[in-house]
């Protein structure tokens, strides 16, 4: 099962490798990892998506918490969260497919951010599922290049 961990870490050099090193050491695969400074310039926040059963995830959490540079580890998997991923997708277009491609982009609320003679680049944000669905839908037209940021997530406010 995929787990999403929110990890608050100190914002200085070498922190990322300390965190990543934990995963290599035990042979755990990181599904995605995003990191950037937070509202507090001394802290960065990592969103790490990792696969594993409960025991693996508990080890990962405990090992992460043990690092001196890690301030907190929260498992967001069971929580109610808002989560997003950003993708940039370059798609092949021809005069025959152009309108269908544009329609598909529209349906997924993508934005065309660059246009060439035979291809377009689309920006798309959404849940992982939505991005996967878009990629799937666009595949038949010719998917030339795809970059995705990996997931970021934040707790929903309590209502």
């Amino acid at each position, binding site marked *: 099962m995929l787990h999403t961990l929110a990890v608050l*870490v*100190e914002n200085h050099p*070498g922190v990322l*490798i*300390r965190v990543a*090193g934990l995963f290599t*050491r035990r042979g755990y695969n990181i599904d995605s990892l995003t990191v950037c400074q937070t509202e507090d310039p001394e802290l960065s926040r990592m969103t790490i998506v990792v696969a594993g059963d409960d*025991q693996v995830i*508990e*080890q990962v959490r*405990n*090992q992460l*918490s*043990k*690092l*001196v*540079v*890690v*301030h*907190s580890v929260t498992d967001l998997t069971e929580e109610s969260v808002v989560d997003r991923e950003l993708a940039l997708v370059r798609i092949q277009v021809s005069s025959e497919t152009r309108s269908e491609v544009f329609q598909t982009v529209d349906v997924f609320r993508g934005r065309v951010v660059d246009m060439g003679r035979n291809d377009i680049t689309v920006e798309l944000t959404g849940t992982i599922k939505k991005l996967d669905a878009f990629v799937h839908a666009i595949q038949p037209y010719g998917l030339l290049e795809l970059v995705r940021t990996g997931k970021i997530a934040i707790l929903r406010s309590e209502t």
Partner: protein
Amino acid sequence: MGEETTGLKGATVLLNALQQEGVDVIFGYPGGVVLPLYDALVDSPIRHVLARHEQGVVYAADGYARVSGKVGVCLATSGPGATNLVTGIANAYSDSIPLVVLTGQVPTTLLGSDSFQEADIIGITMPITKHSYLVKDARELPRIVKEAFYLASTGRPGPVLIDIPKDVLAQENVEPFVAEMKLKGYKVFGRGNNGKIEEVAKALSESRKPVLYAGGGVVTANAEGILRHLSDKTNLPVVTTLMGLGSLPAGHPNLLGMVGMHGTVTANYAVDDCDLLIAVGVRFDDRVTSGMGHRFATKAKVIHIDIDPVEISKVVKTHIRIVGDAREILEEVLDSLPGFTVPQLSDWWSQLRAWQNEHTLGYDMDRLTPQMVIKCLGELAGGEAIITTDVGQHQMWAAQYYPTAHPRNYATSCGLGAMGYGLPAAVGAQIARTDDKVFLITGDGSLQMSIQELGTIAQNKLPIKIILLNNGVLGMVRQWQKMFYSERYSQILLQGNPDFVKVAEAYGIRGIHVDSTEQVRSAITEAINHPGPVLLDFAISPEEAVLPLVPPGNVITEMIVR
């Protein structure tokens, strides 16, 4: 010019910060980039012990830390000096030994340029340090040193590395920043939670076949006294790991011995059969569980007390987990006991005694055996002496036959199993505890991995006694080839061994050959009475085996006993 400034050199700031932490001795080896530090050492009251190899430097600091309970400090230059420390750092990390490791680094202007004697020691040691620092400004040294000592010695202890570029050591007119720690992400656990403590007391009072399983965490927490109280009060049988030797003094009636691959039959049977396993400061190492956590203590409710939450349920499923300091928690358990009935263990004890009577550790008396040598050493030196060992058969014989009275009297490389540890560790131990007797028990393979440290012993006039169990082979490897590889011996013969007595004498150290049983007692007596260092070279047969032995792939009750 600059006469009025109050600022100091970076190197002096560093030495002052070390003094603030109570450091009086550093084990080190000089080199180009640490010259400013060696210059400042000339004016410092801190003693510097020069080893003969950086691996010796870090093992000495490790031995010092194990027997004193203080943080060991070692120092090496950049590049090859720093990389020579790596095995020793890994060793301290494996056994949770508090070290502060200082390495010199090339000047900040050259960092990352593959310059002369540059090595990314922080990158190299990241998986084997608790934490590490690259110092960019000498003004930060007081804070970093303070944090490093705190990190090394609290929680689960371990090595902390501080990498210091040459220009930082040479930095002039340093006005240090205030030495305030900034460790927001670091948590240390102390006392347990009341509910959990009661659960432990209840489980204990309800159990019929409990076993207490003591490891290195008992040593770290100085919990041996309270552990003994608890065992005395409830008649609880105790087994220990190699790291936990001495947690209950040898000869205590409740001690069943070491558990695991070379444990006693009774200890292994007891763990297998118990209905309650109270594990304190252990990590269920595969040398104990045979790598079969799922078949270890299967009939027992498992209580795990450890300062490091990562260890709990890592290998064996735990029913009651308590994260915290072993001493505080055992104290709490003891305090809460009066509310519960003391368990009735007479049936359990008669079973345990029956096993003990059936399976005593034994050896031949008619030839010179390693067991006999160690037994005799135990009688003559007593459990109050400090033992360090290397790795191999001699290490296991020492663990089985030497009557260790206190946990801090036994220094050996457990988790990493690093040959070459013993001699430099003895140096550190003797320097930490000047008035105590220090014995190294070693093999001819291991000794040759650190033999140059005889020079350190000679230079510092350390009265260490070396018990060399000389079988002319890599004994432990030979034993495995004999038992598990159909006697196809491969690369275990140490032909070309020197005459170790002559080697010792070349360093000005007394050497004595022993090749008959009659000489054993008199030679050890002579060594003990000699005021300086002595090497005793015992000629033993390569055929001697360490038994019992749990073969790989077996559960711990499936032992080869003879």
